[in-house]
């Protein structure tokens, strides 16, 4: 089976559980064959999908505002972006919308966007209604799922959904209609002669 490396970028406010989701994803069914990474900011996991193996290279980003400006370096070249918010914090959902906007403007074309409402085990203090989030996701043709990293709910499903949206390798020209397209204006390249 061909291994396909997929860079996945994690975006979202600090404290929403970005790295918890990924740690859960990577640690469950830990694959002893892969060489461990040095830390939890960058993790990899390989999962079979169809006739391929999808190796997720997961780039975590710092959610604090002061690091926001570095995000482009992290999401560039990503096949997918997972934007995480905390269902108990409305602010984090507002931040998510900003990320969607930024990705649309500066992110790679064809990037698969997944919206993950984390901490759904804390439903009783929910601030973001599931319906609202789901509708927003549909409006931008993004994957939507509510997860609980703590209880390991929907974590694998999240990545399975991403796998499904990745266009198959054999015919890369095939457009996946579901995925949310973000276009990027290529900046005019400067020409120079020595």
């Amino acid at each position, binding site marked *: 089976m061909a291994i396909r490396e997929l860079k996945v970028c994690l975006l979202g406010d600090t404290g929403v559980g970005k790295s918890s989701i990924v740690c859960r994803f990577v640690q469950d069914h830990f694959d002893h064959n892969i060489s461990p990474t040095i*830390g*939890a900011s960058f993790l990899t996991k390989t999962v079979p999908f169809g006739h391929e193996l999808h190796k997720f290279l997961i*780039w975590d980003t710092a959610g604090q505002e*002061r690091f926001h400006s*570095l995000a482009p*370096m992290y999401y*560039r*070249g990503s096949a997918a972006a997972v934007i995480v918010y905390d269902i108990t914090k409305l602010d984090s959902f507002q931040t998510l919308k900003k990320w969607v906007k930024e990705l649309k403007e500066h992110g790679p074309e064809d990037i698969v966007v997944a919206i993950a409402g984390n901490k759904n085990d804390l439903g009783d203090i929910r601030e973001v209604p599931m319906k609202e989030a789901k509708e927003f996701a549909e409006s931008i043709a993004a994957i939507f799922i509510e997860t609980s990293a703590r209880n390991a709910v929907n974590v694998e499903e999240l990545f399975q959904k991403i796998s499904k949206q990745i266009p198959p390798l054999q015919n890369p020209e095939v457009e996946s209609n579901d995925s949310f397209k973000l276009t990027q204006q290529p*900046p005019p390249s400067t020409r120079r*002669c020595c």
Partner: protein
Amino acid sequence: MASSSPFPMRPMDRSGSFFKLIDAFASEIGELKQEMVQTPSAAEDKQPVVFQGLEGEVSRLYLQSRHCCRAGGERDSGYDSLGRRMSVLDRLTRTHTVWLLLALGEEEARRVLLRQPPGVFMVRRSATLQRKVLSVRLDDDGSAPCIGDFPVKESQYTFSLEDSWISFADLFRLVAFYCISRDILPFTLKLPDAIASAKTQKELEEVAHLGAGFWDSALSRQRPCSPSRPLSRTLSPQRSDSRQPRESRGAQGGDRGRQAGCGNVSAPPTLRAHPSGSSLRPERSQSGGALCFVNPLFLQAHHHRQGESLTASSRSRDAKAPGALPSSRRAPLTSATRIQDVEHCTSKVAANGKSCLTPPPRPPPPRFMPSRRPAPPPPSPAVPPLSPAAPRPPSMGAKSSSPAKNATAPIAVPSNPPPPRPSKKPDLEAHRCHIALDDETIAKAISRAKLAPCQPAGSFPANVPMEEGAGGPPSPAGTNRRGQQCFSDMSMSTSSSDSLDYSRSPGFSLGLPPTPARRPGTHRDPTEDSSEEEEEEEEEEEEEEEEDYGVGLENDLENGLRRPFSTRRRKVGVRLSRGSFILPRALKGKFRRMSGVLGSLVTPERRAIKKIAELSREKGSYFGSLVQDYIGFVQENRNCHTTATDFLQTIRQFMTQMKAYLRQSSELDPPLESLIPEDEIDHVLEKAMHKCVLKPLKGVLEVALHDFQVSSGAWRQLKENLALAKAKRPLELGVDGVVPPDPVAIEKIRHKFLNMRKMYSPEKKVSLLLRVCKLIYTIMQDNSGRMYGADDFLPMLTYVLAQCDLPQLDAEIQYMMELLDPSLLHGEEGYYLTSAYGAMSLIKNFQEEQAARVLSSETRNTLHQWHRRRTAQRAAPSVDDFQNYLRVALQEVDSGCTAKTLLIQPYSTTEEVCSLCAYKFRIADPENYALFLLTGDTSQQLAPDTHPQLIKTEIHSRPRAQAFHFTYRRVVANLNLHNANCPSG
């Protein structure tokens, strides 16, 4: 059969079995080597032999010389004639153009091989299997196909035949081995006669020159059958030397044997080596003649299924009508013929370089027998060296006991030298290693074995006899030679040849001793380096690689050594029997330090890199001239770049182009595919580029990067902001709820960064960065026990970088980002490099950030550009992209466009290009013409002193290369350029 042993019988400790296996390998390879070398090396014979058993072993290895030299009475080391005596490996290597035909199709291979006698072979790439195959001409008998394709398995760093347990460092060694030992093949390989019988390098060159055409040439059909002219005389003009009479005698003997009945010739030379023969004869009779030489390993395998072997061997014997096979590929013989012909055979081996055609017949069962693969055959009482406790032949790996298809696990070759002291006795079961059966590796074991006869059991330093010649051998003039002979005959067989670096320079193949012998003055004490820190070692390693090849052995050893020792922490703790041989004390230390070498398996890669590096220094080669010209140009013209990024990207582009060139060019000889498994090639090329290009340029680059920083004001800004950031508390940099590293840890990290600056390889720099990051994680986790994501890590990294107070780090990061192999940028290296760059950017803009909390637009742009470059889908460079070609269009008012691809050196000026164009396009008035660059809708006349090739490179290296053309046209003419439809440049 159990009564006598050719091996030393010594008390064995519990690891003895393992060591015996090593001995087995040692003897096996020794034999292989000997036969490949055919060097009369009688040193051992002359020396007092310390261990009786060993004598049997060693003398067997040197049997040819016994024949030659005993008769002569005087020991002729064969040193003078070494040049003419080429090993099989040598022959194969020099003539790879003949048999290594990767592009050859199946049909063509079939056509060629069918005309050849059985055993003749080639290596090609099978389109159906998508891998290399060894195509061998098989016997015609039966309904079996006449050509057999044996897939070559390439695992990391090793080559092996599928289903075989034996792995090799490269294809040449693999093929050479199968010329000697059939292993899983139906019989051993046979070199075409013209190659096998060539006496001089020149002859081989002639053959090699024919390439694939050899097979259709008359040479390929030549057969050595005349007793007086057993060899292809046409190819051997220089034959009148002092040794000839003896050789001829030998050759004739050999031929007589062959003519008397082909079967006879196949008597293994090894038989003769045992005049006592006690261990062999019973062996033979028992095995129905299948076993003709002592090879403990194979003996065991044989005994394991004696019945099978018997059947198989008798079958093959039947198949072998006299004369059917030109040479002795068949093992089975009747004992009568065997004994008769031993002498012929031996002499023939010594004389005519056909040893490969006289392989020691092997009795291993045919490959279709599954029972072959289960590694451990039962111990054979007839083979004392393999005690019943040693039933673990080929693979010592944990998986070895399983018969599963596990061919990736290379054979464990415990070829490191014996442990010096009992106290060092390792837990062998716990320290297993997977080691390729590289003959070099094994040769080390041999060289160890040979130490004993060479040096009386005393423990004087090994280098004494070799360096000083004071060991007191009888022939004073020959001391040095003798030392070399003792240690290096087998593996250094190819040292006589000049063509191949890898066979000549890494004395590594020998184990330690030979180097001092060859270059006494350069001998270095390895202990000097033992206490170095990891980073320094790495840098040292890089430095050492460049040193004089005379110390290559030492280097290789140290390099190989230190890595495992520092990073692998003795995972490979295999040791040899301390009991079997006595080692000079001085060697013990070295050997102990060597124990990691075997596991590291870095040699093929190193070898390849070294070869490329050598080629890059040869101005006579095309590659070398490109690299040297480029380096010279960069050194002189670094001001031609406006930014550091631009500068670095041009270099990166050059390296990428050179990699593509090396992949396609035939300048590398032997081709890389024969040395390195295919999926490793890119990585090896990348490393080689670092060495060829970045290493010489490191100093210039450093200065240039710094100058750019200073001139742009970035340096001052960085220093100011760094000072500011350093004064901040962790919380102010975003570190929240995590205890930061203490000053000691910061100092340690700082030290690592300082070491990073010494390296030229971006890859090594990055690996050091990863170590720093890991250290930061460790500190964070130690203080809390939880896993930290980027929310915590990035602020901490920023804090640590600020505390380190190293403004130089900025240029380091830039260096890595621009020069690192782009394929690494999506992985962990890329992630932490991105993080370090981001953290550094934040620090650089600390004031601004404090004020506005926004990153400067400048930085954003840089990030943006960087990424664009990285992700831009650029087609692999084509030949036209290489620096030597330039496509120029002639644009005439009336006749439109004509384009030509011109050969333009990288640093040709526009003026030169113009005059070439004038010539090529037959322009009558060149003074009215000029070269223009068309990009998009702009047209720009190029000044006479500019370099079109560099302009092309520059445009190519842009993130989004625009279409551009070079046109040669009238200056005055008012052409409508933009509508002209010209071919692309």
